[in-house]
């Protein structure tokens, strides 16, 4: 049985993990490479690196740490942040990324999804969408949630999947950072609309929030979170043990088999 994936997300700026990460036992707490190794050894099913750098120098540093990570971490690695051209795809794939996520770049130019899927295959192209309720309607926001595009979210996601997006990360701006649980209503609507893997993002505050997500929406594929993992509020090993107790299909490492 295919398992539900647990995905830590690392925000990287100028080659360093941002948001004060608190880790014991790591030599360098803001080294993306060290953190990635830690997560990979502690049960993460996949990792997302999000490049929030704006400068060319920051980009270069990001490429360096991405390469170093991909050389030492052997689980799938998705890269997002500032992807707006095929050259951007090429740059991160050459550094060892397995999948590339597009957000604002696809809103500016939806054909980017089509061209990238054609060149690298759909399995490589992840649509990331930041969504917020505006007058009761799910609406797509761009530029890290700053700009209201006015685009209706569900039809946008369907359109991007038709263009070739092989996976969708749904980030609810309404629940993000609130730690009161994932946006079940939104995620359920997306899962009903598309037949590709859907990754839930935004709102996880505790283990039970993941249990609720996977129980209420059996078709969701993965749960993504950042700070609750970075701050040890949720240990992936504990989370997975709890999922197994609830009979949610989950990848346990071999010592548990």
């Amino acid at each position, binding site marked *: 049985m295919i398992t539900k*994936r647990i995905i830590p997300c690392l925000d990287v700026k100028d080659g360093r993990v941002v948001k004060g990460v608190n880790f014991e036992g790591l030599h360098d707490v803001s080294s993306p490479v060290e953190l990635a190794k830690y997560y990979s050894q502690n049960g993460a099913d996949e990792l997302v690196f999000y490049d929030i750098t704006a400068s060319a120098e920051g980009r270069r540093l990001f490429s360096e740490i991405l390469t170093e990570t991909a*050389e030492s971490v052997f689980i799938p690695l998705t890269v997002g942040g500032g992807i707006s051209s095929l050259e951007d795809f090429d740059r991160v794939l050459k550094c060892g990324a397995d999948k590339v996520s597009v957000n604002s770049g696809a809103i500016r130019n939806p054909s980017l999804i089509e061209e990238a899927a054609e060149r690298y295959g759909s399995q490589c192209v992840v649509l990331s969408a930041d969504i917020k309720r505006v007058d009761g309607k799910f609406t797509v926001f761009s530029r890290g949630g700053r700009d209201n595009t006015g685009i209706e979210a569900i039809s946008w996601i369907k359109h991007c999947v038709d263009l070739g997006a092989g996976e969708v990360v749904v980030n609810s701006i309404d629940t993000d950072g609130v730690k009161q649980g994932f946006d079940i209503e939104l995620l359920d609507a997306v899962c009903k609309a598309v037949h590709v893997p859907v990754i839930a993002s935004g709102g996880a505050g505790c283990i039970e929030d993941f249990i609720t997500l996977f129980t209420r929406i059996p078709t969701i594929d993965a749960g993504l979170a950042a700070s609750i993992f970075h701050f040890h509020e949720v240990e992936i090993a504990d989370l997975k043990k709890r999922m197994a107790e609830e009979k949610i299909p989950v990848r*346990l490492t071999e010592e548990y088999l």
Partner: protein
Amino acid sequence: MLAIVDYGVGNLFSLKSSLRAVHADAVVTGDAESIEKADRIILPGVGAFGDAAEKLRATGLSKVVTDEALNGKPLLGICLGMQLLFEKSLEFGEHEGLGLLKGCVKPLAGYIPPEYKIPQIGWNALSFKNGGEKSPIFSTIRNGTYVYFVHSFYAADCEDSVLATTDYGAEVTAAAGRENVFGCQFHPEKSGEAGLRILKAFSETERAP
């Protein structure tokens, strides 16, 4: 020396890195002589079967890889590289493979229940068949170990050579092989510690007599 066959499809970064991590001496090459000189061969691949088979033939590497495998040199096909080991594929038309293993590559669509998403993307468990657990590449791997899959097609009609299956609403070929020829539908280079052990084991397999 292990040769990773470079015939212009797919990203070989992870495969190269993971072999380095298990201290296997590997080279990425599209050169027939290097492949002939190598002790073992890995045939990678992502994308469409037809394109890949055509590229392998056009570069002449299809014959080199087949001849070496028939002479007993260990060969490991990964993902599309595994599918290419079979006789043919029905992916967008009918295409001929290397024919080292008996069987035909078919779409998951129509085989698995409709509620299952295609491609299968994610971690799924290995269930050994035909004594697959005794295969040299799986000797350290427990039944039920999770490995990472990304695929829309699967190897069918290969009962004789299947070494492991995975449950995706139906029994799907996860690994196949006979004698010195091995194939993994999953990506060992993306399957964490277990995947590394599989690659390590392959890098130590001996020639068939």
